[in-house]
Structures are given as structure tokens and as C-alpha cells.
């Protein structure tokens, strides 16, 4: 074999099998080609109609900007619906039926998810590349520069990437068809919001100018933050998707918790640096609240995890001093609760410490509010998940397994947000003007922590509730802590 052939063969081996299959199917099938052709026709028609209907564009200086926004809207509408749906439906089909039999091969779950994502992104690149000439053409209509076009295309690509990964995550969920359809609709609403947000941000960026700010911190600071958040969300969804299709017996939580812990640390450092450089604690506030939202969600997931570790996980529990950190990171309900609680506490301490270390940062009012939100959301998250656990263990044990505890927690949360509000509204009927008027009734709603006059009440209530529910589940926690012992040979 020639060296060229050897390199080709090695490259061929290195390629992800899913990517090869998906792209072969995309090329041989008519669906992708037809969708691409249709998009090009729509773009061409849209551009033609715009030019024809705006006959005075020669004298205008913003025609290119508007034409670009028009084309971007078409591109994003198709990419935020077609590509995620194409990827998710194919994967869900493969999981639902045994037609493709992907899951009896020795291919790794991470390779499956990565392959699906990479193939979808390749199709996205194809679509973006096909649309690029039309987009670039708008430069000749004036009102937009080439760097702006490329930056906005890159940002849009990032949004589509996150959307594809979200759709893949929904497809990977081990849920029934009805629940999956509901979750898909929820994802569709998120895509719609992403569509509106992308277009709004793009328009705002074009009107305020991108090209002129490319060399300054005012562009790269927020851009870095957005990229970091997008990568974090992408990574989180990726690791969750992989965990979902891993066998139940595997240590599924370990990579997810390691990733979240890592990204939490990196984003903490980044937001601290931004806060110190800009002498503004907004970045810290955003980081802390976003972090605790993830950890509050982690409580819901944790109480749905398996309660007894299988021999496979037990075999990997270390004997040495690593046992304690392993407890926080390994799969298992109690481990998940302990990890989410620890991370919430660390977030609270980090915000408090960073704020205390600088008078400028401490002076900002938002840092105190961040502390309230961080503490409050974590305690509400713990309280709801522990209450759901209690309900599942003592009331619903005959009908529900541990894996659906999150659903009970969600129902409780929805009830806690809506029912007291309705009662308060009826009680104060006629005199209700603002949320503060029924503040006392909103004590079970974690999203009303912003009502200043009731913050202490809410925090005390959430803390007491979380503590009580945890104490009532103490046997569940202690049993699992005791069982977290290495395999005895």
C-alpha cells in the first residue's frame, strides 16, 4: 500500500461511522437535496422580490442590512426547524425501533451522539455555504459590511448547533412517545425564542455596528461570554445525551458531573476576571444565577437516579482517600443530591467571597440579589425534589419507579407556583394590583424571590422546608452513603 493509501485508510478508520452513514444517506437520499434546493429557490425569490419591490434601493444606505436580515430570517427558520428535526427524528427512530440496530453494536454512546451532531453540523455548513453568496451579495446593496456578515453567520451557526444538540438530547431521553412529543413541542418553543433572539440581536448589532468594534474589548468581552455560555450549554447537553443512551448499569453521572464541575470552575474564573476588569459585578451575578439554576435542576435529576449501585459501578469505587470525592461524582440518587447541594453551596460562597474581596464589586446591589437567588433557588430545588422523593417512596411506590421522581417534582413545582397564587388572588379579589399584594401566598413559588419585602420570609420558608424534607428522607440518604463501599474481593 502506498503511503498515500495508508494515510487515506487511517483517515477512513478515524472517521466516525455515524458521520459516514448519515452523510452517505444524505447524499443518496432526496430529502436533504430537495430541502437545500428549496431553500436556495426561496432565498433567490426573496432577494429578487426585495430588490424589485424596493426600487429606490440605489439611493438608500441601509438596503443591504434589511435584505440580509430578510435572508437570515429564512435561513434560521429552516435551520432551527429542519436540521434539529431531521437529526432528532432519525435518532429517535433508531432508539424506538430496532431497524437500525445501532445499539447492539460495540460503538460507544459518545460516538453515536458526536456522530449525529457532527453530521447535522455538516449539513448546516452545507446550507450556510449555499446561502453565503446571497448573504454576501447584500454587501453590494450597502448598509452592511463583510465582517458583520461573517460574524452574524458564525453566531447563527452557534445557535443552530445548540438547537441540534437540544433536539438530540430530547431524542435520547428514555421517555414514552407522548412525553417525547410534549418535550419536542417545548423544544420547538425554545427554538422559536432562539429565532427571535438571534434576529433581534443581529439587527441590534447591525444598527450599532460590528465591524468598527471588532478590535475592541466591547465586542470580544460579550462575544467571549456568549461563546462560553453556548459551549457550556452544548457540552452539558452533549454529556447528558451520552448519559441517556449509556446502559443503566454504567456510571452515567460521572462524566456529566465532571463536565459541569469543570465548566463551573472555568466560567467562575472567567466571570471573576470580567468583573474585576470591568469593575462591574454583572458577570458574577449572571454566572451565579445560571449555575444555581443548573444545580437546582440537578436535584430533580438526582432523586430520579438509581438507588442501588450495580456491581459495575461498585467495582470502580476507590478504596483510598478518593472515596469521598467519588461519592459526590458517581451515579446514585444520594450522590447526586450531595453533589448538587455542595455545588450550590460553593456557588454561594464564591459569590460572597468575590464580592467581599472588592469594595467596587460589593457596592453593586445586584450581588446581594444574586446571593438571595442562589440561596433561594438551591433551597427550593432541594425542597421540591426531596418532597417528590418522599411522595414517591411513601405514597406512589406501587405505581412509580425512581426514574419518574422528577415528574412528581415538576408537578409539585407547578402546583406550588399556580395554586397558592390563585388562592391569594381570590382572597384579595378586587384589591390585587401587584405581586407584593399577595406576597405571603407566593411562598412556595421559587420564581418570586425578587419580591424584596418578602425575601427573608421566602428564604426562611425554603430553608425550613428543604431541611424538613431532607430529614424525612434521611434513611434514604444514609442507606446509600453506607452502601457506597468498594467491591470486596
Amino acid at each position, binding site marked *: *500500500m502506498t503511503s498515500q493509501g495508508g494515510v487515506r*485508510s*487511517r483517515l477512513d*478508520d478515524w*472517521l466516525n*461511522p*455515524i458521520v*459516514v*452513514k448519515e452523510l*452517505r*444517506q444524505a447524499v*443518496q*437520499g*432526496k430529502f436533504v437535496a430537495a430541502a437545500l434546493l428549496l431553500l436556495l429557490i426561496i432565498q433567490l425569490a426573496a432577494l429578487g422580490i426585495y430588490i424589485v419591490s424596493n426600487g429606490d434601493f440605489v439611493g438608500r444606505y441601509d438596503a443591504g442590512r434589511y435584505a440580509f436580515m430578510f435572508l437570515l430570517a429564512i435561513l434560521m427558520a429552516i435551520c432551527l426547524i429542519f436540521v434539529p428535526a431531521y437529526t432528532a427524528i432519525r435518532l429517535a427512530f433508531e432508539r424506538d*425501533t*430496532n*431497524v437500525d*440496530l*445501532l*445499539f*447492539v*453494536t*460495540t*460503538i*460507544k454512546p459518545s460516538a453515536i451522539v458526536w456522530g449525529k451532531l457532527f453530521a447535522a453540523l455538516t449539513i448546516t455548513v452545507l446550507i450556510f455555504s449555499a446561502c453565503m453568496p446571497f448573504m454576501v451579495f447584500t454587501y453590494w446593496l450597502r448598509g452592511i459590511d463583510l465582517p458583520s456578515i461573517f460574524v452574524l453567520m458564525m453566531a447563527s451557526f452557534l445557535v443552530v448547533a445548540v438547537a441540534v444538540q437540544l433536539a438530540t438530547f430530547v431524542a435520547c431521553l428514555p421517555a414514552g412517545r407522548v412525553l417525547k412529543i410534549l418535550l419536542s413541542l417545548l423544544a420547538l418553543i425554545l427554538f422559536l425564542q432562539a429565532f427571535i433572539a438571534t434576529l433581534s440581536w443581529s439587527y441590534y448589532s447591525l444598527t450599532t455596528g460590528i465591524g468598527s468594534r471588532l478590535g475592541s474589548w466591547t465586542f470580544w468581552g460579550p462575544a467571549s461570554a456568549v461563546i462560553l455560555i453556548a459551549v457550556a450549554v452544548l457540552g452539558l447537553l452533549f454529556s447528558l445525551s451520552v448519559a441517556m443512551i449509556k*446502559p*443503566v*448499569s454504567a456510571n452515567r453521572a460521572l462524566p456529566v458531573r465532571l463536565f459541569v464541575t469543570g465548566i463551573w470552575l472555568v466560567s467562575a474564573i472567567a466571570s471573576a476576571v470580567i468583573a474585576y476588569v470591568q469593575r462591574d459585578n454583572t458577570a458574577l451575578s449572571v454566572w451565579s444565577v445560571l449555575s444555581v439554576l443548573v444545580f437546582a435542576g440537578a436535584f430533580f435529576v438526582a432523586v430520579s437516579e438509581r438507588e442501588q449501585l*450495580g*456491581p*459495575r459501578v461498585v467495582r470502580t469505587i476507590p478504596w483510598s482517600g478518593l472515596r469521598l470525592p467519588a461519592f459526590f461524582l458517581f451515579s446514585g440518587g444520594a450522590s447526586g443530591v450531595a453533589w448538587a447541594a455542595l455545588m450550590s453551596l460553593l456557588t454561594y460562597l464564591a459569590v460572597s467571597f468575590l464580592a467581599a474581596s472588592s469594595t467596587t464589586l460589593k457596592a453593586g446591589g445586584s450581588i446581594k440579589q444574586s446571593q438571595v437567588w442562589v440561596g433561594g433557588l438551591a433551597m427550593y430545588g432541594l425542597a421540591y425534589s426531596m418532597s417528590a422523593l418522599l411522595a414517591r417512596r411513601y405514597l406512589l411506590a406501587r405505581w412509580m419507579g425512581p426514574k419518574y421522581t422528577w415528574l412528581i417534582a415538576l408537578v409539585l413545582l407547578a402546583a406550588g407556583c399556580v395554586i397558592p397564587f390563585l388562592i391569594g388572588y381570590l382572597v384579595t379579589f378586587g384589591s390585587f394590583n401587584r405581586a407584593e399584594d399577595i406576597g405571603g401566598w407566593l411562598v412556595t413559588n421559587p420564581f418570586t424571590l425578587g419580591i424584596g419585602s418578602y425575601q427573608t420570609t421566602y428564604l426562611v420558608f425554603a430553608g425550613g422546608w428543604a431541611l424538613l424534607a431532607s430529614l424525612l428522607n434521611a434513611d434514604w440518604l444514609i442507606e446509600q452513603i453506607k452502601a457506597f463501599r468498594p467491591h470486596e474481593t
Partner: protein
Amino acid sequence: MKIEVVHLKKHFGKTRAVDDISFTFAAGNVVGFVGPNGAGKTTTMRILATLEEPTEGDALIDGISVVEEPERARGLVGYVPDALPTHRDMSVHDYLDFFARAYAIKGARRPQVIEGIEEFTNLAGIRGKMLYALSKGMKQRVSLARALLHDPPVLIMDEPAAGLDPRARVELRELLRVLAGQGKAILISSHILTELAEICNGAVIIEQGKLLMAGAISDLLSTDGLRRTVMIRSLERPEDLVRDLLEMPHVESASPAGGEVVLEVNGSDEVCSEILIALVQRGHKIVEFKQLRAGLEDIFMNLTKGDVQ
């Protein structure tokens, strides 16, 4: 190489699809997995193929648990499902190439393996054909080829002969014979019991998720309590023989058939020999006393009630 199914249970809500099933078979054996529709055959096979997780119990393939180490178990199992590949946009060769890649068959070995399997399963001539354009028999071959790509020592085949024409069935049977000869352990489910009986040396019979019987075909046939059919030829008139036979315990029926007598005996081999002794003692001149071997079909009909849960 040994396959052990240990107290396997799989519940779907209140339905007990598989209810405490245990059986074992070893390399080189072809075991027929028999049961009425809805008996739990497909669920058990899907658990063995790591596509389903059991509610309780386990299955060990060469000591590797399909529950605890499904990734390792997958390397040892080739699974042929009852559903056939239907991709509209994939050729036979691309399909096999994808699975060869998924089984991490790398470099120059991959085309060699695919070519070898295509030759073995007689797919070489249609390697460029699209999957959707294939006949059912050809799709079944593709499915078998896919399952054989990583040369697994265990083959799990769910209704591989369903819907195949007689020629395709004969060809499939020949392929299975060759594979069994190669030392593979094969678990095969089918409703065509006469065909199974021809290639199987073991059988597992289940109904409503419960195990009714499992073991080597020869052992199953000699199990006490089964009905046996015996043919007797004597030098006297068959009617005389029938009269005496009907007076004997365990003889459920006896009737002349040509110059012979065919009787149904409810009992073991020992009971049959006692009948022969009694006939000789009564002075009958027996020329031939032959037990007509009960087939898998007879065992199946004797054991199952045809109930569906």
C-alpha cells in the same frame, strides 16, 4: 462458551412478558426457542441482545452479564431481529460497511471481512442494490450478514424464516448448519417447528412468559408424562391385537392402520416396554414394535395451551 439465562424477568406495567425464565446452552448447539405468540420469546431475545433491560435476573454470555457489562456482551452476540432493514437510501454494501465500522473493524481488514460475509451469505451479486429494493429473503440474508460481521460466537435469531419462500428457507437452514458447524451457539425462534426440529439439537419452550421445558431435544422426547405413538406389526389380525391393547392401562387409543396397529400411549419408554412384554406374554406374535418419534411439534402441542396474556 456458555449462555446462561438466570431467573430472567421482564415486566411491562402489569404484563409479565418474561416471568422467571432460566435455561442454559453451549457453543455448537442450535437451540429452538418455541412458544405461542406473545409468549415472551422476542423480549427474552432482545434482553440477550442487550436491547432491553430485564426487570430482574440476568443473562450471562461466557460469564459476561448483559445487564452489568452490555458493551462487552455486544461483542459476543450477533442479533438478527424479526424486523428487516428498510432504509430507502442505503445499498447492501454501505449497510454492511456502516456496521463493520460500528463494530470497529478497521483498515484493510474491513473490506476483506465484508467481502467474505457477502460471499458466505450469497450477497456478492447484489451488493450495490438498495435495501428497499430487496426481496424478504434477501433482506433476511443482509440481516444475517450484518449479525455475522464481527464473527460473534453467539447468534440470536428472531423468526428468521418468517415469510420466506421454500427455497429461501432451505438456503437459510443450510447457512445455519454451516454456522453451527463452526461452533457458534445459536438461539433461534420460529413458528415452523418442523424446520426447527431438523436443525436444532435443543429446545426451550415458553408460554405466557413462563418456562415450560428446556433441554436437548432427545431429553425432551424421553421426558416422563409425554404421549407416545407406537406402531405394532404382528403375524395375526390387527383387530385381535387392538382388542387386547385397549384393555391395557396407559393405552389411550389403538386402531388398525393397514396391516399394522397404531396406538397412543400415555407414558414413558418404560411403559412402552411393559406393553410389549404383556403382548408377548398373551401370545401375540410381534414382528415389529416401533415408537414413532414425537417431534418438536408434538412436544409443543402437549405442553402449551395457546393462552395469550
